[in-house]
């Protein structure tokens, strides 16, 4: 009879996760006793929790702890993505505070789930085991399924929820099946064990292994909304509450990219030739189709959804290019995109009104005169997404294309820039609407709540800072990436 020998408990390595989870529970409980109009209290508690978690994450810098039989790791890569993800959660909390204070809104559960998504993302970015990765993904996904349906007065919100859920579950099955085959082929689900199993080289050309890898990629591609697994994205983004759309568009991408990169570089480096080909195709498809489809969108959220598809394609270039340059590029891109897109959605939220419905591009007509601040901020975000210099988006694209060329993927770089030009088309459409068209006759000045203003200001500053002085984030990314390369 085997003796149970639990692995050494390393609470420090998972401290951020613990803090976030505990705060989630605290919010859940406190939420039961808090009246609707007091919901900012919950937001405050959540923010404190996330803040503490961020501190705990940063504290792990340079420690490189592998814990729980190698199931998780708290290295600098994790710290980077942890901070990014938690930052996204924090901003989403602030962004939601106005929205969550409304009548009949289950604020307690809302914040709880939001914090749990944070937990899920932390797990994803630290997972070194396919099973841990899977569970982290599910924590994130299930929270999001529910959050998507949170705008209860809108049928579209529910519709988005069920579409997201059904397709999410469907694609999860592929992932699970892929993990099963991977387990069969390598005998393990742990990254280092898989890598060791592949080292001998006997397995490398095994169809079963390759198929397993392909199936796993399908699961990831769905979450990253890469073409052709992206089709849920516009519908869900449009239907979900704007703050959740904002969160989904950046949070999911950040965490899943972290997990994907770790999986590919730590577990499957031997298969690089194979997965790089697949991702190469997916990147091209995503950049091309995402950008093209976005051109004629009339709803801002849908447009940003397609833009997100395309942006995921650009990020993928970093993964394909691999190497230090590729990883740096991906990390910077993720951070830049997170900041910019959150800001953009914050502006959309500012316009979308009480019912969260006014997200048509027409709503932006003449915004410059209705709210110069929102218009100015939105213009900066659009330019950043388009990759115009002095914004985060430019540096991100520079990094990515550089990585592509250094990695020998000139084709990706060229397609990337050409599709960027197409993208400019629709990003400019927003600027045209805001600055060059007159506002509706009946349009009134827009009241910007303090919470929204805070987000907009923070994201604008970050967008520009990352474009003008990118070194801070880059240094972090660089150090992390080089550490990762040691494994």
């Amino acid at each position: 009879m085997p003796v149970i020998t639990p692995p050494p408990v390393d609470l420090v390595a998972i401290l951020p996760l613990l803090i976030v989870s505990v705060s989630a529970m605290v919010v859940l409980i406190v939420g039961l006793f808090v009246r609707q109009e007091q919901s900012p209290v919950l937001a405050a508690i959540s923010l404190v929790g996330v803040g503490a978690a961020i501190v705990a994450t940063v504290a792990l810098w340079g420690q490189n702890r592998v814990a729980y039989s190698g199931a998780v790791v708290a290295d600098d890569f994790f710290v980077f993505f942890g901070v990014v993800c938690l930052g996204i959660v924090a901003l989403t909390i602030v962004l939601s505070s106005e929205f969550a204070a409304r009548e009949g809104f289950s604020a307690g559960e809302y914040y709880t789930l939001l914090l749990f998504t944070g937990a899920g993302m932390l797990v994803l970015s630290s997972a070194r085991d396919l099973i841990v990765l899977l569970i982290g993904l599910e924590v994130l996904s299930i929270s999001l399924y529910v959050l998507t349906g949170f705008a209860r007065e809108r049928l579209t919100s529910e519709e988005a929820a069920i579409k997201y859920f059904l397709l999410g579950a469907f694609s999860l099955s592929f992932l699970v099946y892929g993990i099963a085959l991977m387990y069969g082929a390598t005998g393990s689900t742990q990254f280092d064990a898989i890598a060791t199993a592949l080292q001998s080289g006997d397995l490398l050309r095994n169809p079963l292994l390759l198929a397993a890898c392909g199936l796993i990629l399908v699961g990831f591609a769905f979450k990253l909304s890469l073409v052709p697994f992206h089709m849920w994205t516009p519908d869900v983004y449009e239907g979900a509450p704007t703050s959740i759309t904002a969160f989904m568009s950046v949070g999911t991408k950040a965490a899943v990219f972290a997990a994907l990169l770790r999986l590919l570089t730590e577990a499957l480096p031997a298969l690089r030739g194979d997965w790089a080909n697949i991702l190469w195709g997916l990147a091209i498809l995503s950049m091309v189709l995402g950008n093209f489809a976005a051109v004629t969108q009339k709803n801002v959220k849908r447009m940003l959804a397609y833009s997100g598809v395309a942006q995921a394609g650009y990020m993928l270039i970093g993964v394909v290019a691999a190497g230090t340059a590729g990883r740096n590029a991906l990390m910077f891109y993720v951070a830049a995109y997170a900041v910019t897109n959150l800001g953009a959605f914050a502006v959309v939220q500012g316009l979308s009104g009480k019912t969260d419905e006014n997200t048509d591009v027409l709503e932006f007509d003449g915004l410059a005169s209705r709210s110069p601040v929102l218009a100015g901020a939105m213009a900066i975000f659009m330019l950043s997404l388009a990759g115009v210099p002095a914004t985060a988006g430019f540096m991100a694209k520079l990094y990515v294309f550089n990585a592509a060329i250094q990695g020998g993927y000139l084709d990706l770089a060229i397609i990337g820039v050409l599709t960027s030009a197409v993208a400019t088309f629709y990003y400019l459409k927003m600027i045209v609407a805001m600055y060059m068209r007159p506002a509706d006759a009946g349009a009134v000045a827009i009241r910007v709540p303090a919470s929204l203003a805070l987000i907009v200001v923070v994201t604008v500053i970050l967008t520009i800072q990352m474009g003008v002085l990118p070194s801070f984030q880059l240094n972090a990314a660089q150090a992390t990436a080089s550490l990762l390369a040691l494994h």
Partner: protein
Amino acid sequence: MLAPLPYYLILSAVLFTIGIFGFLFRKNPLIMFMSIELMLNAANLTFVSFARYLGSLSGQVIVFFVMTIAAAEVVVGLAIIVSIFRARASIDVDEIHLLKD
């Protein structure tokens, strides 16, 4: 006593495929969801089969986790389905497409 491993694997592949077919074919979200359960089961069967042939227990433990995941999904999924279709005359995913281009 034991059938060879490929038999198990093929069986699970067949089950997995039937699940996929069901998901694509049926319009009833409940049956689509059941199809997903079928797919997960197929995956589980693969895990267990491999576990047996690898002589490693961890496959079984993983199945345990997958079941948990499935359960969690069922809870939330059914709740979503109920909340949408309770008020409707028909249970048909094709009926819900307000969101499209």
